């Protein structure tokens, strides 16, 4: 299975995301922001970082990259897409996910290990988790505070589109403790914490992040999807 990892100018966790794909047993394919060809990948990760310096608003400029046009089209046809951190911001800016990510309420960048509860295993990226499972991964962002109007938030809750919530403390003021959401179809997921940094015992706080990458591989091979 080929999982594309997009590099925008300023992407930083692209190597890490590719490593996570490999550790999960997939083949990582590098995609370049200026190339609209998706090179036949079966899924796409938009990695963390500071695309285009994250000047203006995080993700605001990356949204216009040629590769995003293709990703948008493919996503509407069911291509699994995972946006991590900056990737999540890009997905919101590109209107592939509702809401927006704003400045952390304490106004500082925060990097720490964090408990997160998986609320929905019914996505292309979370099939390997149990609903309600608490995982220990990490956050590192300055603009991770998820906001949306009440109506949108209620809709997300009602449709089961909230994929993960912060537990044992909200690190950035995110509304309803939201750490990750999905689109209605469940193929597009945005997550603020970093599962790709929790895939190796020596370098991460746990191995709890690996499930995102094994899930999508299973999903692609027609495995254990719970939808």
């Amino acid at each position, binding site marked *: 299975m080929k999982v594309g990892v997009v590099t925008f100018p*300023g992407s930083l966790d692209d190597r890490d995301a590719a490593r996570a794909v490999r550790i999960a047993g997939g083949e990582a394919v590098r995609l370049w922001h200026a190339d609209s060809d998706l090179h036949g990948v079966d899924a796409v990760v938009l990695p*963390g970082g500071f695309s285009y*310096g994250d000047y203006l608003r995080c993700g605001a400029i990356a949204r216009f990259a040629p590769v995003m046009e293709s990703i948008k089209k493919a996503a509407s046809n069911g291509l699994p897409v995972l946006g991590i951190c900056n990737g999540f911001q890009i997905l919101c800016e590109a209107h592939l996910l509702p809401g927006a990510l704003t400045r952390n309420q304490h106004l*500082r*960048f925060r*990097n*720490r290990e964090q408990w997160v509860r998986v609320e929905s295993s019914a996505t292309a990226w979370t099939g390997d988790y149990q609903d309600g499972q608490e995982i220990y991964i990490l956050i590192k962002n300055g603009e991770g505070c998820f906001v949306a109007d009440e109506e949108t938030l209620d809709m997300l809750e009602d449709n089961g589109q909230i994929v993960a919530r912060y537990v044992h403390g909200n690190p950035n003021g995110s509304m309803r403790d939201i750490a990750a959401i999905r689109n209605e179809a469940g193929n597009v997921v945005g997550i603020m914490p970093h599962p790709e940094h929790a895939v190796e015992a*020596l*370098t991460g706080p746990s191995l709890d992040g690996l499930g995102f990458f094994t899930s999508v591989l299973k999903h692609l091979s027609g495995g254990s999807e719970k939808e």
Partner: protein
Amino acid sequence: MSIDTVERAESTPDELQPFAELGLKEDEYERICQILGRRPTQSELAMYSIMWSEHCSYKSSKIHLKQFGEKAPPSDRMLAGIGENAGVIAVNDKLAVTFKVESHNHPSFVEPHQGAATGVGGIVRDILAMGARPVAVMDPLRFGAADHPDTARVLPGVVGGIGGYGNCLGLPNIGGEVVFDPSYQGNPLVNALCVGVLPVDRLQNKAATGPGNIVVLMGAKTGRDGIGGVSVLASATFDEGSEQRRPSVQVGDPFIEKLLIESCLELYENKLIVGVQDLGGAGLTCALTETAAAAGTGMDVQLEKVHLREASMEPHEVLASESQERMLFIVEPSNLDAVLNVASIWGVIATPIGVVTNTGRVRITWHGETVVDVPPGSLADDGPIYARPLREPADLILLQADRAETLPRPTDLRETLLTLVASPNLCDKTWVTEQYDRYVLGNTILAQPEDSGIIRIDEETGLGIALSVDGNSRYTRLDPYDGARLALAEAFRNVAVTGAEPVAVTDCLNFGSPEDPAVMWQFAEAVRGLADGCQELGIPVTGGNVSFYNQTGATAIHPTPIVGVLGIIDDVAKRIPMGFSHDGDLLFLLGETANEFSGSEWAWVTHQHLGGRPPKVDFGREQALAGFMARTAELGLVRSAHDLSEGGLAQALTESCLRKGIGANVTVGEDAFVALFSESASRVLVAVPIGLRQAFEAVVAEQEIPLTLLGTTGGTSLVVKDQFEIPLDELRTAWSSTLPKLFG
């Protein structure tokens, strides 16, 4: 207004030049005229004034720094040493590591955020210029009193700047220091260290070899940034009142720097360049003259080709600009298109601005008129050198006589411990460090608050490097020779306790004015101490940085040598962390504790006292300890190890307990106060699984390390038998509340 050309300079030999305003002495100016055989042009004067400044020429420090080379132990690991952009150490046949620590003190006081940010940017380019991919940064910091209002301005800005720049570059921050002392009130210290990794055969050179080769400038546009003294040129003589439009503050753009990193690595990988130099202090002036001087060649440069941010800039401003995020390359003509192509893929500007010549002169034209014609070596290598007068500070004898060992001792040790762990220098630094990304790149094995940062540099074999930076300016104030040695000993030990083998040193020497003989004496002593220490330990200084004029009015900061030690660990899976992780492990203290309190945190926090002589240093012991730690790591005999430094055993126990929330139960000798709070050097706290006790003690016996069994790990309190018990919750609250209370 017409520009000052060489032709004009020849025809107006008597025109007055503002050399004094630019910081040049009369005899220095005369030497310039002698070298050129005429008066310098405005641009040339700007170039000499910068290159012959203390910052660029090391004119006061050079004669002392020589010792690092003279006393350096022979090392076949060293591929590049002092004088290069950064020292390079071979890790094995294939991989090398380059690292260096540098200061950005003054800019960070004026504009904390941008000053600190551009400090990170600058050191990263040094590492990049050696051919390496930067893989981590560290940040030793010094601030005034923690509760001083100006610290509330400076500290959040500095931390935000370091985090903002480093995070955006995707470099994990793996350690540093946050130290408060009133001596830094008007002059905080922002030092930044960067480490990079390269294949041995990718090592780059700055020499502009090969006449006919093209000189290419890449990166950000050039603006009026950081044109310090050069504004004098314009304002004093030529253009009154224009000074305020010349900012000496530089604003960084980490995004461009990230693109520069990727572009450079692609150029190196495809062997597209023959020489490279970063632009830092002294900007183009330094880059052009150093590359030409290093090769013994010349250069013809068409300066108007440089992309400018402001069209009205004059040639001397272009030459002096310290605009960030720029690199200079020497490129064979046949590779020029390929180089420009790499730049365009990454979206950075690259411009051919000149050619290498065999004239032995750097000639610079501005729209066809020659504004500079100089022998590059006279700027880069042959600056003035001073043997400045040295005199021991007059108050030192009295200071040393006022020993802290005679201060009244505390009666309540529990209270003392809680007060100390909550003091600004010993408290939890999470408020600072959580603003830094320590995970990016996915190779961080250890990072703050561990004793060293460890980065895996080969994912297949698990090969890694360890780094620690340390400095104790109170010790150095009391005895600069031993203070520098203690900084070295601590950094060395911090690397060793993780199981790594220390192999090389970098340093940043932060001092007051070299024109003050007392400061100069402190400097000379500190350098001698560091050089001697490295000789005794058998590890070389590979590079570093000197920062003088750190003072407020006539008052200098405490002398602050910051020492960084690099270690190698063959298999990062064997690294030893600092925190207790299991109940029931045996706790041992390695090393001996003496009654040493002078310069200690206890003396400062409880008595505001600074006096006496710092703890003794014994490099033989440090080496034995290091050897021992490497052996136990190899054999997997200890579960955690933590070095003892400021705050002594009490502090080490606190940090190891709180790391994972596992308590300890220990017995200390008769003199509990000394046992808990003395700052004797060469000591390590280790936790050994009970089943490995015999194997552990056997290795101890081999190495003749003094060993004391303290007790065991476990429980939810820190218990010192017959003294006190502190629940970990209470301990954690005391330790971790201080910075959030001060800074929000």
